[in-house]
């Protein structure tokens, strides 16, 4: 089972990883895994388990282009992020790193700390109370990038960018 972590709206990348905790600023870059939400929600990094689900409000990931924000989430094994709207640079970075992002508003349906099962291939969340939540399927070109494991493996496999077969 995966734990649900609920976040509010307009979560910016400074809240995900403050610029002061960038790999550029660290003696040991591997320490980045200790810093997702280090100031915004200090119980997240010590408590998150691989596969856990972030469920957030509108405009998740707004602000900076720093890829180390989604990278920090990947390092701790976040299984997917669900929000009604993602800021575009964050969405692209998460896609590039192979973190599934689903566009839906579940902040009033799921509870913080709730246990759920995430069935990625089906785009389905099954809650500990047996509720089935169908996530909207992302466009095909985005699914292809996830399936490849991120944009770099996609590019190396196909020799072109998503959306166009050249």
């Amino acid at each position, binding site marked *: 089972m995966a734990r649900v972590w609920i976040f509010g709206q307009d979560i910016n990348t400074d809240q995900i990883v403050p610029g002061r905790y960038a790999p*550029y600023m660290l003696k040991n870059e591997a320490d980045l895994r200790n810093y997702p939400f280090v100031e915004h929600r200090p119980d997240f990094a010590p408590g998150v388990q691989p596969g856990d689900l972030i469920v957030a409000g509108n405009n998740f990931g707004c602000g900076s282009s720093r*890829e180390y924000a989604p990278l920090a989430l990947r390092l701790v094994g976040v299984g997917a992020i669900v929000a009604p709207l993602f800021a575009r640079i964050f969405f692209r970075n998460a896609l590039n790193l192979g973190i599934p992002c689903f566009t839906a508003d579940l902040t009033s349906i799921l509870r913080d700390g709730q246990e759920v099962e995430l069935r990625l291939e089906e785009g389905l969340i099954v809650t500990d109370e047996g509720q089935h939540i169908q996530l909207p399927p992302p466009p095909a070109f985005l699914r292809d990038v996830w399936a490849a494991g991120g944009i770099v493996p996609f590019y190396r496999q196909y020799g072109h960018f998503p959306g166009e077969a050249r």
Partner: protein
Amino acid sequence: MQTLSEQILSRAAGRTVMAGEVVTVDVDLVMMHDSLSPSIIRVLHEELGAERVWDPERVAVVIDHVAPAASVQTAEKQAEVRRWVRSQGIRYLFDVGRGISHPVLVEEGLARPGMVIVGSDSHSTAYGCVAAFGTGMGTTDIALAAATGQTWFRVPETVLVRAEGRFRPGVSAKDLALYAARRLRADGATYAAVEWHGVEFLTIMERMTLATLSIEVGAKAGLVPPVFAESGAILPPARAEVRRPALQPDFLQVQAGARYSQVLTVDLDRLEPQISAPHTVDNVADLSELGRVAIDVVYLGTCTNGHYEDMAAAARILRGRRLAPGMRMLVVPASAQALQRATADGTLMTLLEAGATIGTPGCGACIGRHMGVLAPGEVCLFTGNRNFRGRMGSPQANIYLASPEVAAATALTGYLTHPQEVEARLPLEV
């Protein structure tokens, strides 16, 4: 009929494209800065397996995010970046003190109308000040663009902000941009581009204020039409060696009948100074609505409002006056050129005589890393672009965003102040 973004991306894709299409395009310029270059270099070589960048004349590297280095590890990483630049034969390295990437690439004539420019910095929307399609991307996208000379986009819809009239005294481009954030909200132009019309009377760097703040409403790009004839908007000459350099502005123009997803009309004659209160950029009110807000430190700088024009606007208010007791005012010029110009015409001396201090041109404390980081409980009046909690240092600090005019007036009184009030309340020292 096409928007500016559709015209530029059509040219870059080699075919006519419209909003909603997913396209692969050629990029004209790739910008990377010191903060992310080490990771970009690693992805380029280790993950993509590329030995060289696609074109060493179309990759620009700028040391601006921690400049000069503030620690052994940042110094070490900057040294690594310089070695890499040499080994790749990259032509454009703008090192410590040259300034922030965005004004520098415009001043150097590298950013030109009609170009597609991708940068490892979200404020790369800045290049819209010269009607380039500039956009920010992360490490992996920039590494891919540097390796291949291409990237992919969903062609954005466009939100039109149409300004009418002229600013009243004490009101400037920052107030227009913050007002747009107030109306459009932080997500109002997500996945879209913003076009700023009716602002042809602004200088290039004043246009950059609008272009940089476009990301704060979520925009992919923020473009000002390429009209350079009117007052002060002098396009720096293109570097002779820049390939596909200056498009004639008539190649790219506002087309009647272009489709806009939303139109926001702003009456500049009625616009008051705008303040973005903690902790989101769209938390904006008229200054007059806010009451008395005490400020500990005034910070004038960044790619949004650290330009020559901004220092000069502050100097006009500070001239012959002194900072309020206990006030600190930090001025971090956006570029060496801006600093030189402010030095040559006495602007800098005016700032210093008023009690301000000057930092090395660059990003300064905008990212909370050095040169004026905030303590818990401190309140900063910032001419930059983000007031997120913890952005400039302690998460217990409060950041208010405002124009350079409001910044200067506030530095004189110690609390948020309308520039027009200064004349009445603080007579000149004789």
